[in-house]
């Protein structure tokens, strides 16, 4: 049965009746990294420095050295990232169960709301209304918040800072509580964090990090192309690098969707 299923999938991929959607931003120095107040340690930005390029440093080959923080570009948050998840089993990048890295996705379209209000908060009522249209969120699914934020290609507009901090959409505390109750695999966003830009002022602060990771759930952020996914029926493949005791890592996130 399973072998036949995989054969069928391979055929469908070749025939484009199952399509692969790239959910990743290009990792480049131009793509901004998360900003913390300067008294805290900072996430190293993504950097690429040439080792050689068919020159005196290496006549026949081109390659680079990379450096970046774990939470750079389109990336995965493991439960150990947050203090609430620090003592859970299998909470680090190398110990995550591999079968949890491929999972169905529920996509909640918030593009109209986020366009009107950069501080838009997804509430439990929004989630229930979505369930009313598309069915109950299944256990083990990714819930992805589609805001079109990834289409802000200007890094200044993407970060959207003013003197009171960052203004980007995200979930409120009750929405996260409901998703944890649904036993989701994790929560994903197009913005630079799974929490809203102003989440430092919420009660509790950073509810998505606090509750999701406290329940052993994951996060995905800086996703792209969520608008190409159906509300249900896609499968997300998002595997972080197998870093020893890693709290997260950049990922090449992909989704499989039904083709035409």
């Amino acid at each position, binding site marked *: 049965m399973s072998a036949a299923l995989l054969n069928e999938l391979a055929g469908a991929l070749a025939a484009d009746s199952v399509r692969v959607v790239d959910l990743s931003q290009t990792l480049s120095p131009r793509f901004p990294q998360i900003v913390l107040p300067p008294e805290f*340690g900072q996430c190293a930005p993504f950097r690429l420095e040439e080792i050689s390029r068919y020159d005196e440093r290496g006549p026949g080959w081109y390659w680079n050295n990379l450096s970046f923080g774990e939470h750079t570009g389109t990336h995965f948050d493991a439960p150990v990232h947050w203090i609430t998840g620090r003592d859970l089993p299998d909470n680090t990048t190398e110990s995550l169960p591999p079968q949890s890295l491929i999972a169905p996705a529920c996509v909640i379209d918030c593009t109209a709301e986020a366009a009107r209000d950069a501080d838009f908060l997804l509430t439990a009522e929004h989630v229930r209304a979505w369930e009313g249209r598309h069915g109950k969120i299944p256990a083990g699914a990714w819930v992805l918040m589609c805001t079109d934020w990834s289409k802000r290609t200007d890094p200044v507009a993407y970060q959207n800072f003013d003197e009171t901090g960052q203004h980007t959409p995200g979930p409120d505390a009750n929405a996260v509580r409901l998703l944890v109750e649904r036993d989701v695999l994790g929560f994903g966003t197009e913005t630079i964090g799974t929490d809203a830009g102003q989440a430092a002022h919420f009660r509790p602060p950073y509810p998505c990090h606090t509750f999701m990771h406290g329940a052993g759930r994951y996060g995905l952020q800086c996703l792209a192309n969520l608008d190409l996914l159906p509300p249900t029926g896609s499968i997300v493949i998002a595997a972080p690098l197998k870093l020893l005791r890693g709290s997260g890592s950049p990922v090449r996130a992909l989704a499989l969707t039904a083709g035409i």
Partner: protein
Amino acid sequence: MTPPLIRPKPRNPIRALRLPTSPPVVRSRAALRLTAAAAEGRFELQHCFKCGTVQYPPRSACGTCLSHRLEWREVSGAGELISDTVLHHSNELYYRERVPLRLGTVRLDAGPSLLVHLHGDCAAAPSRVRVRAHLDKSGQAVLIALPPQDTANMTDDPMLREMTSDPKFHKILVTDGKSPLGQAIAKALVDAGADIVWVGVAEPWKDAPGLAALEKLSQVERVPLDVTDEKSVRDLAGVIGGKVDILINTAELHRAHGVADRGTETARAEMDVNYFGLLRLAHAFGPAMRARGAESAVPASAWVNLLSIYALSALPSHGTFSAAKAAAFALSQNVRADMRGAGIRVVNVFPGPIDDEWNQLVPPPKLSPDALAKAIVAALRDGVEDVYPGDVAQDIWTRFRESQKALERELWDQ
């Protein structure tokens, strides 16, 4: 009267680039002390402890009494021009390009007679002059006699301009336009007559107070530049690298931590900006600046590094910062050696605490960004190579020379 410098025409693109040449560079160890004083803008000569003779040229013993107890002390340059001449021919490439040159012999009031360059405004001998020691395009001290009082456009004299980098008509890159210091420097350069001041902006999503107001100045242009990103530095060099006459590296990361206070991440970030940032700039901007060391009436002429007086001796309460600045200091000496053949002056600035948000708990006196900006412009105008601006820097520099070891202990509890 010196004719005023007029804005040079753009280079004729079908003529070969005029390549930089260097005046004679070799000096005895004794004569290098003249260079050491001139690097800070002082004119010093050897004074004999035993017989009091002030002597020139520098020697390892007193020419009058043979005592080797000689002390380098500042000397007044006031003296009498006793003969003058015009040089029309030289086999040195550098002088060959610059003849006719006025030269003269000056008898200093302090005693010795000196062979000097003569400023165009000096009256024919016999006349009163004041002699200054300046670094020439080889980076070594030479002597030049100026008229006894300042004259109109005095700084526009061609030979004096060989020894200075007045910002007038220059195109200048200030690598960090977001810091109060970078902004103060950009304003001071505009006031000094710079043609273009490019100001680098890293991480544009973090807005910087004052940047929008600075950009309203027509000479100021904001450019993307993050010295921690090799690609960003190279991309900017690809656009303006062939235009920059003076580069002022103000990019600095400073956190007030001792070395035991934090892990390595902040220290690494400080090294990435303060040390590797300078290295990336030297790779990307150095070659084109060296090539343009003699291009026109306004050639590429100076490279300024913002260091710290704590690069000389570490301030443990700002330990990782001191270490990163010490690394940058060592690097800047290499950049200076690399730039020498092209006549590009590398100016190292060693301020004490700057009055900024990372020195909040440091008690005054602290150097205001405006005062530091003025000191940097003055250093360019005066052709000074090592700048210790402000009371704290002067004090520490003096104590450093008296006893490095004593200073090391004194900085423990500051």
